[in-house]
């Protein structure tokens, strides 16, 4: 009996050499791969900040560039990014939220729901260069909008629609069925119920969707390069009126980065724009995560 015990103890303690080697090698590989990824990330961030921060200044962020005064500035690009974000959200938000409401509240035909969800997934999987082609074809040429902020914004509407639909749908699903029944039981109509009960309790999800959409818009370059153009001039909507939005073109931040890096070979400024983009990304990630955890709690 004792002998048996001893034997079994031995098999537990000592692995055969090949198993030992397997364990060692695999563990080493796991740590090596993780080390590589972490090192890579640190290197990326440090390198970008090291190259970009020195030429970063308030003037660079806000001024319009001028050859005469020898000023470099991405002020117009910052504003254009804002304009494009606002114009895109104004269109995509009602559409996306409406679609999510239809899918979770109204739709009864299962096949139609499946078709809409498949379409949404397809839109999410299409690469941005295809959207660029479509933007040029449909908005810039067929609808004769030309290379304008509005053509870019409309293309981005198609691109960000899946994000808005999906996040809104997720948060609508978390609204307890009893809320709906309570509201309907008190005599409100369906639309009144959605407007006063369902939407307010899923507002976190909608905001998260907006934030993610903003992230995609800020990072997008291919679409905007071909639909909005590379101009680095300031658009003065206050003086020219809002209708000039439909004829204005201009680069956003990521397009400005492309212009600095590939057209002008002004790499320090390109890295400065990269720093701005990374800081925006970081803020967006944090905001989305904050809202996400809040969403889970409620």
């Amino acid at each position, binding site marked *: 009996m004792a002998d048996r015990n001893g034997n079994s103890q031995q098999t537990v303690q000592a692995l055969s050499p090949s198993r030992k080697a397997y364990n060692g090698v695999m563990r080493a590989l796991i740590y090596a791969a993780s080390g590589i990824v972490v090192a890579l990330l640190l290197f990326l961030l440090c390198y970008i900040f090291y190259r970009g921060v020195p030429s970063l200044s308030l003037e660079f962020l806000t001024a319009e560039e001028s050859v005469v005064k020898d000023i470099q500035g991405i002020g117009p690009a910052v504003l254009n990014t804002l304009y494009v974000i606002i114009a895109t959200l104004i269109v995509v938000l009602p559409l996306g939220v409406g679609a999510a409401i239809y899918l979770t509240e109204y739709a009864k035909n299962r096949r139609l729901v499946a078709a809409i969800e498949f379409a949404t997934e*397809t839109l999410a999987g299409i690469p941005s260069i295809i959207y660029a082609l479509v933007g040029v074809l449909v908005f810039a040429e067929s609808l004769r909008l030309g290379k304008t902020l509005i053509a870019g914004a409309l293309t981005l509407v198609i691109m960000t629609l899946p994000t808005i639909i999906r996040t809104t749908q997720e948060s609508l699903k978390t609204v307890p069925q009893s809320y709906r029944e309570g509201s309907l039981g008190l005599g409100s109509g369906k639309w009144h119920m959605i407007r006063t009960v369902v939407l307010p309790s899923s507002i976190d999800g909608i905001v998260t969707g907006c934030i993610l959409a903003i992230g995609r818009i800020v990072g997008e370059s291919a679409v905007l390069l071909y639909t909005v153009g590379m101009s680095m001039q300031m658009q003065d909507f206050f003086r020219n009126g809002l209708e000039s939005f439909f004829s204005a073109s201009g680069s956003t931040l990521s397009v400005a980065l492309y212009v600095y890096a590939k057209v002008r070979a002004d790499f320090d400024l390109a890295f400065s724009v990269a720093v701005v983009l990374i800081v925006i990304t970081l803020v967006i990630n944090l905001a989305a995560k904050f809202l996400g955890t809040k969403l889970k709690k409620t």
Partner: protein
Amino acid sequence: MQLIFFFCGFIAIAFVLVITVYLILSGLPAIREIGLADFLLGREWASTAKEPKFGILPLILTSIYGTAGAILIGVPIGFLMAVFLAKVAPRRVAGVIRPVVDLLAGIPSIVYGLVGLMVLVPFVRKTFNTAAGESLLASIVVLAVMILPSIISVSETALNAVPRAYEEASLALGATEIETYFRVSAPAAKSGIAAAVVLGVGRAIGEAMAIMMVAGNVANMPSLLSSVRFLTTGIAVELAYSSGLQRQALFSIGLVLFLFIMCINVILNVFLKRDKEG
């Protein structure tokens, strides 16, 4: 009211239809004029020459090689990292690393292109003594880095979804933790990991701006150190100034790329659905 919401829901389908119809309508004329075989299998792309040639075989092969290379580098590293985050790492360490990986996913592609242009391209030039460092190799590395975050997060989700009982059973039978992760958890999560790979393929084959900055954009038949042109960059490089048949040929490239992507999406959906059911 219901009608309005129905319209909103239907618009997603409408967008997909519009994109498909537009790409087919504007992509077909050039293919018809050039000839399908000459277009797909032609080995030479010289769109602005006096006698223009529109063969996109180099572009197709470059896209396939580039994607395969990125998968070959990105998937093992991403998978091992996912095992680390899901199983090996202490909770606190994983809690620090995960948001950083998310940040990696959010960085705009053009920033990757910029860093690749400034770091990788000179590195390739010096190491291999080539005239220009802009090459397939540099593009593969950039793509591999770019697909890492999605591979990590999708495989990690799949690994976390493996029932705890499987792992406990394996441990109780005397397998070590490492053996359990690779021989029990990973096979149990295989359709999720397959989905991660397909997602990576989709992202790699569709990326344009980042590799446009490091690939060199000459339509050579692909080899590791030569300047190459992908399907995506083939569109991106010439879209701004093209006209006539050249422009139509770009739309045809778009159509080919779109077909690739649709196939990948269908495969991805199959894996995701299987993952949900299994």
